[in-house]
């Protein structure tokens, strides 16, 4: 349970997140990938706070901000998915490529 092992686990989670986000076609699965990446980031933040930060409160604030980012991203992401589905009845990333200018 040293800093390096926790960071390796965080790296693995972020790797899975990247793989998931890039490989999936549907919006919602794309957001699952992003959530997985932020999950890895939170774990890395916690590890740095515990092993190198010496329990500095600013480290905890950073992790809470990361959770806030995840909440905001998810809320706005799903609002967008609803808006796009209402307009286009499609939720695949291909279907909406026509949005490009």
């Amino acid at each position, binding site marked *: 349970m040293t800093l390096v092992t926790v960071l390796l686990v965080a790296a693995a989670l972020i790797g899975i997140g990247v793989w998931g986000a890039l490989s999936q076609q549907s919006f919602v699965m794309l957001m699952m990938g992003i959530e997985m990446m932020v999950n890895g980031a939170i774990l890395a933040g916690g590890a740095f706070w515990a092993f190198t930060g010496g329990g500095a409160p600013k480290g905890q604030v950073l992790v809470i901000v990361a959770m806030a980012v995840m909440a905001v991203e998810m809320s706005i992401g*799903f609002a967008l998915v609803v808006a796009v589905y209402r307009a286009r009845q499609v939720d695949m990333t291909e279907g909406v490529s026509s949005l490009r200018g």
Partner: protein
Amino acid sequence: MLGAFLSGLTVTCAAALFTAGCVILARRSTRYPSTAPQRVPALGGFEPETHAWSRFHVRYYPMALLFIAFEMEMMFMYPWAVVFVEEGVTALVEMGMFLAILAVGVVYGWREGAFRWQ
């Protein structure tokens, strides 16, 4: 401190495994296998045309999105509650501002009909 979490986790897993064990044991060791007419969903007599699992049109999705944003407030309030008595009035004023800002969001949602079944 970790011992407390350990005993909490042990108690949870014990209750969960006991319940799951009972249910799995009953399902495995039953003497009557479920036949086709028994497996039809209980709708009072007739069969459904399709599977129940479908793209269920949730009617409260704006409220759900509003809830995720509002939930973040809890994250900030727990530490505030611990140091409230120490910090005194400044803590009350700051949290008052924080709550007021988020209350504006709820009032806006209410006015836009986010809490009504869409």
